[in-house]
């Protein structure tokens, strides 16, 4: 922690610290931008694995018994790995490890993270976690099939797929991931607090940084709960303790455990699990705010309210966890408490949604690809959020729990919505990372395919949930209360899912093609105000800022300021350097 190899702070740059060889520049790099790209590529690669897994699940559900390689065990393993990879190894890693790493130093105006060495270590530890996780596909018995929540006792009992080795790999991988996240997280928080450029007060930070900052604090405080439960479950499995394991019969024989409490695991898991939703959502909230303001050429509506809402959501997210456990049984007063806190979260969240819409109101909206994804996000998020309000009530949750309604809800709110923002962010910041645009036509095709496709997938799922179709089931069998038409719906969902999956290939091809052949973008193609667009070079070089660090003179949202010639004023432009309109400009302005 005391390591400060090349300080991120000094005004003058010392050339001797620049990496020379290929290996120190691109492999063992301590540059936050390279680490961010390493994080992103790894996360997206493992995310594609999870996408394929979801496709295989859908094949079984849409066309039961047509595919011999999907037996019930394999199906459960696909479900489990899909969930865990998407939530933790893709979304958390890409939003914080990828975008957090890339954007924090650039947006707050510093040369690098404050602990570059620790940052590098964070990535390689994350990679180790991914490798351990992927290795579990190849051990005897395969990956765990316990569901992404890994509830004991079933997660470690004979009969559950992967109960022998897969679950151990999963738990160890999670523990390693948490170590990696803590190293990265300490870096992000300290950089935001200690290394901001001159003039960058907390309230002048772009909302992206606010979102990432608060989400990182949530992560630092919530991941220990997962670590605790992972360690205790490993003890139960390997050393024969009874933290979570009750005395039960397994396959007709009494197990060697007694007295443990599976509910205790659920409390720990969801004490991590609910903040995790916001670890994913808050950076997305921040980034979408900046994309909307930039492409609507308007200051974000209610900036302070947006910041307070992020902080309030972060705080509240720690006192709602038991709403995932209504069906586990609890004191009715607890249920009342957790339902109330859950509904209260809707207040700051709704403030954010209104503010996004009011930012668009009478804005000079440019329907660029990032803007399309950002607007798409407002739809999907509102949609998923509203079903969240329904499920937050105990009486509504009980009949809907463990049905496809829940699957539809959380996929809309924390699957599709953050992914929409991720795409918006990738299309928005790609010109800074590579100096080239992503192809717009392919981008628009990608947007409409993804946006309409996800609705084709998840809208019918709400209805399946109302019918009572349970989640995680390999096949329906002969169930009287579910009409046969539900199968037709399932088939249509599967077809949509496969189409959406294939469309993502178009996106990947677009990225690969554009890195080499994309249209050159210049250094600030969106005329944005935030600091990352004001670097001397695009892509920014090692040390980001050339000789002098930027000095910040204004907040991040000076778009369309009256009587100013350009419709944006970058954060590092001093008041005396702002170019005002002359008479001719004013005349033109009135005419239009």
């Amino acid at each position, binding site marked *: *922690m*005391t390591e*400060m190899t090349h*300080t991120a*702070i*000094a*005004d003058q740059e010392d050339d001797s610290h620049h990496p020379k060889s290929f290996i120190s520049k691109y492999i063992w790099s301590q540059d936050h931008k390279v680490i961010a790209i390493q994080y992103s590529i790894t996360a997206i690669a493992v995310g594609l694995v999870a996408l394929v897994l979801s496709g295989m699940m859908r094949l079984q559900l849409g066309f039961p018994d047509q595919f011999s390689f999907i037996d019930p065990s394999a199906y459960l393993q696909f479900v489990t790995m899909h969930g865990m990879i998407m939530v933790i190894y893709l979304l958390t890693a890409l939003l914080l490890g990828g975008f957090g790493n890339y954007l924090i130093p650039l947006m707050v105006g510093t040369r690098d993270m*404050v*602990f570059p060495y620790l940052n590098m270590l964070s990535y390689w530890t994350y990679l180790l976690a991914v490798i351990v996780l992927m290795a579990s596909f190849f051990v005897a018995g395969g990956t765990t099939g316990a569901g992404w929540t890994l509830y004991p006792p079933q997660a470690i009992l004979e009969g559950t797929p992967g109960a022998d080795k897969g679950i151990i790999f999963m738990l160890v991988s999670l523990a390693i991931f948490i170590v990696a996240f*803590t190293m990265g997280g*300490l*870096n992000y*928080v*300290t*950089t935001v*607090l*200690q*290394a*901001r*450029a*001159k*003039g*960058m*007060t*907390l*309230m*002048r930070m772009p909302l992206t940084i606010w979102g990432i900052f608060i989400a990182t604090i949530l992560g*630092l*405080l919530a991941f*220990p*709960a997962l670590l*605790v439960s992972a*360690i*205790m479950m490993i*003890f139960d499995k390997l*050393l*024969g*303790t*009874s*933290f979570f394991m009750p005395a039960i019969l397994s396959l007709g024989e009494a197990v*060697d455990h*007694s*007295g*443990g*409490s599976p509910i*205790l695991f659920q409390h*720990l898991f969801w*004490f991590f699990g609910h903040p995790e939703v916001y670890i994913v959502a808050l950076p997305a909230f921040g980034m979408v705010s900046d994309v909307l303001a930039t492409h609507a050429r308007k*200051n974000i509506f209610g*900036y*302070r309210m947006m*910041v307070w809402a992020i*902080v309030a959501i972060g705080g509240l997210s720690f006192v709602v966890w038991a709403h995932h456990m209504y069906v586990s049984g609890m004191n009715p007063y607890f249920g009342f408490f957790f339902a109330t806190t859950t509904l209260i979260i809707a207040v700051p969240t709704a403030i954010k949604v209104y503010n996004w819409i009011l930012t668009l109101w009478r804005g000079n909206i440019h329907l660029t690809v990032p803007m399309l994804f950002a607007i798409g996000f407002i739809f999907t998020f509102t949609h998923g959020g509203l079903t969240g309000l329904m499920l937050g009530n105990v009486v509504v949750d009980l009949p809907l729990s463990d049905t496809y309604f829940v699957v539809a809800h959380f996929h809309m709110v924390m699957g599709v919505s953050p992914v929409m923002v991720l795409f918006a962010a990738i299309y928005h910041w790609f010109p800074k990372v590579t100096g080239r645009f992503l192809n717009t036509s392919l981008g628009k095709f990608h947007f409409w395919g993804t946006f309409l496709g996800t609705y084709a997938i998840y809208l019918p799922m709400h209805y399946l949930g109302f019918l009572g179709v349970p989640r995680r089931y390999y096949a329906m069998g002969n169930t009287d209360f579910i009409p046969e038409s539900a199968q037709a719906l399932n088939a249509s969902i599967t077809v949509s899912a496969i189409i959406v999956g294939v469309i993502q290939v178009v996106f990947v091809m677009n990225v690969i093609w554009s890195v080499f052949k994309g249209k050159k973008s210049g250094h600030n193609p969106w005329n944005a105000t935030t600091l990352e667009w004001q670097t001397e070079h695009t892509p920014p070089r090692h040390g980001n800022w050339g000789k002098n660090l930027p*000095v*910040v*003179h*204004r*907040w991040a949202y*000076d778009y369309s300021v009256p009587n100013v010639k350009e419709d944006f004023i970058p954060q590092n432009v001093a*008041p005396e350097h702002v170019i005002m309109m002359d008479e001719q400009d004013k005349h033109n302005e009135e005419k239009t």
Partner: protein
Amino acid sequence: MNIFQKLTEKPWLADDKLALEGNSGSVSSAQLNTSTPAKTALYFFLSVVSVLFLLFTITFLSRSQAVDFQALAGEPWLPFSQPTSLWFNTGILLLASISLQLSVLFSRQKKTNHLLIMLVLATLFSATFLIGQYTVWQQLTLSGYALNENPANSFFYLLTGIHGLHLLGGIFALVRVVWIFWSKNKTQSLTASLRLCTTYWHYLLVVWLFLFALLTATPETYRTIALFCGF
């Protein structure tokens, strides 16, 4: 400026001069002192570790109310009704903390010889503590209190183990600090780094005292706390 003033600032009107002067997080010459970010990071890290032990404590208290839970103290024949060996270990860890504190003092006064003696002592005491804890484990196992015999035993091994791992990590960090000092010979950064190490050692001492009290309490105490917490 306190945090509430900062958060209620209107950034679209904010006084540019004030922002340029009064920004505590800004880059200034004082910031070249590298200890400030490290201190912030350490405090965040300690909060993370605190949450970790807090959650272990809550699981412990909750589990202690199950019928099969046999506390390790209370009745006179139980191993920690008179935890002599644990008191001994506590004393050793206290000595480690004191030696580190003194090493900071000597580092500031640039008394290199005294400093080195204190660092060696601190490392030795910490290692002795770890060995002492391991001995307690062995004694427990030999007298029939194995890891998987009872949840109280499991928690004892688990919590002391996690605490020991944190101390072991601290020893690595300390050795590294000394190693960097040896190879680069900069006393100024040494004092700052030793201060951070000392904070960490004191923190681990406090955690240990807490764990000590928790793990050797009587079933009645657990009952009372659990009732108070609503388990």
